[in-house]
């Protein structure tokens, strides 16, 4: 690792001020950033730690929504949403391994937007709102491609607000070495319809499979998806699975999600 200065922000305002320096970098739980720094793929002059900011910690439930502070760990989300939003709890409890879940944060995951991460599927599949230090961004506008988001330089995810669906499930085909999703599908049923969000599959990162949403609105059965096909062109192809394999898995995992909700 190249060396850097470390600064622990005490408040969001504090962190925003420290991140004005263009070579400063926000640090959540570090479960992606620290390995990245070890590989010398980044060279910030200052790391600004967000995990000690009280206003960014914890889970609150109000009016059919679950709001999670950006610096809340996966373990805490898993524990504290178990009754209010079980599908989100299960997703958080399946990220990485227990030690990773004790450090990694939801804000860090969403700011990084790894194309195989789990949280982007939950946020997009729930139509969540990404709350930052200066605005609120709808999940549909937030994810802008592999490792790309609507966040500006130095903008911080302070919280994420999930409207709680009538029912939901996350089906993850795990890549056993990395424990990321080879393909993961988040399916949620709201009063106004279904949302299907797919992670792990596309070169453009997480996406909504709107054809499946429409088909399920008409006929909520796994077989209703039999004639739908994802084109392999934009799928990720690597040593773990070809483009065609991932395209196939998207439908299979979506069908499993439907079965899980029936």
């Amino acid at each position, binding site marked *: 690792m*190249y*060396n850097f200065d470390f600064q622990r922000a005490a408040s969001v305002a504090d962190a925003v001020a420290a991140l004005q320096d263009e070579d400063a970098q926000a640090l959540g739980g570090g479960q992606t950033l620290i390995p990245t720094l070890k590989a010398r793929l980044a060279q910030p002059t200052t790391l600004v*730690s967000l995990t000690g900011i009280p206003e960014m910690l914890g889970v609150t439930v109000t009016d059919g929504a679950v709001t999670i502070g950006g610096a809340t760990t996966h373990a805490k989300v898993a524990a504290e949403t178990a009754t209010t939003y079980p599908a989100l709890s299960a997703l958080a409890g399946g990220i990485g391994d227990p030690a990773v879940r004790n*450090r990694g944060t939801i804000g860090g995951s969403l700011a990084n937007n790894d194309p195989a991460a789990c949280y982007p599927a939950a946020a997009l599949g729930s139509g969540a709102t990404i709350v930052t230090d200066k605005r609120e961004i709808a999940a549909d506008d937030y994810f802008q491609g592999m490792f790309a988001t609507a966040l500006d330089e130095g903008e911080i995810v302070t919280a994420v607000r999930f409207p709680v669906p009538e029912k939901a499930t996350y089906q993850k085909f795990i890549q056993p070495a990395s424990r990321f999703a080879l393909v993961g599908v988040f399916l949620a049923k709201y009063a106004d319809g279904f949302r299907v969000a797919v992670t792990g599959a596309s070169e453009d990162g997480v996406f909504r499979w709107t054809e499946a949403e429409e088909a399920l609105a008409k006929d909520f059965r796994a077989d209703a998806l039999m004639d739908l096909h994802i084109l392999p062109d934009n799928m990720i192809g690597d040593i773990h699975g070809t483009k065609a394999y991932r395209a196939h898995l998207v439908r299979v995992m979506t069908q499993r999600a439907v079965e899980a909700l029936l």
Partner: protein
Amino acid sequence: MATVTMTVNGKSVSGDVEGRTLLVQFLRENLKLTGTHVGCDTSQCGACVVHVDGAAVKACTMLAVEADGTTVATIEGQQAEDGTLSTVQKAFQDYHGLQCGFCTPGMVMSATALLKENPKPTEAEIRHYLEGNICRCTGYHNIVKAILAASGQEVPAIAAE
């Protein structure tokens, strides 16, 4: 350089570290607590698992400065003052839950964290919890048996066979 202070295995310790100093480096190189191992250095293998404020973490993927002001427990702190092994350590010995021993510190720390969270885990829950701890010798069977035994549950003859 920054000065960090933390409680490690019940003792207050301080040291000067760079921003980039990992917690595991601080433990091993500054404090000479070399029981915490570095296996992969990529947060895959779990040989470096320690507890920070009671939670199992991978000490290779946490900065020493992030641990400033915390309470850290390592494998060296698991036994009693008089050398009596902890329940988990004793069970690893009794059930031969190790071969080369390299992964053992992390296994013991993860197992101890699991039993605090879930005092009577099933075999499946134990295996799931150990997802982030890799052992290249034993194939995990005796480790799982040891943890079942440490939880005070019967170790079925067929367990983990």
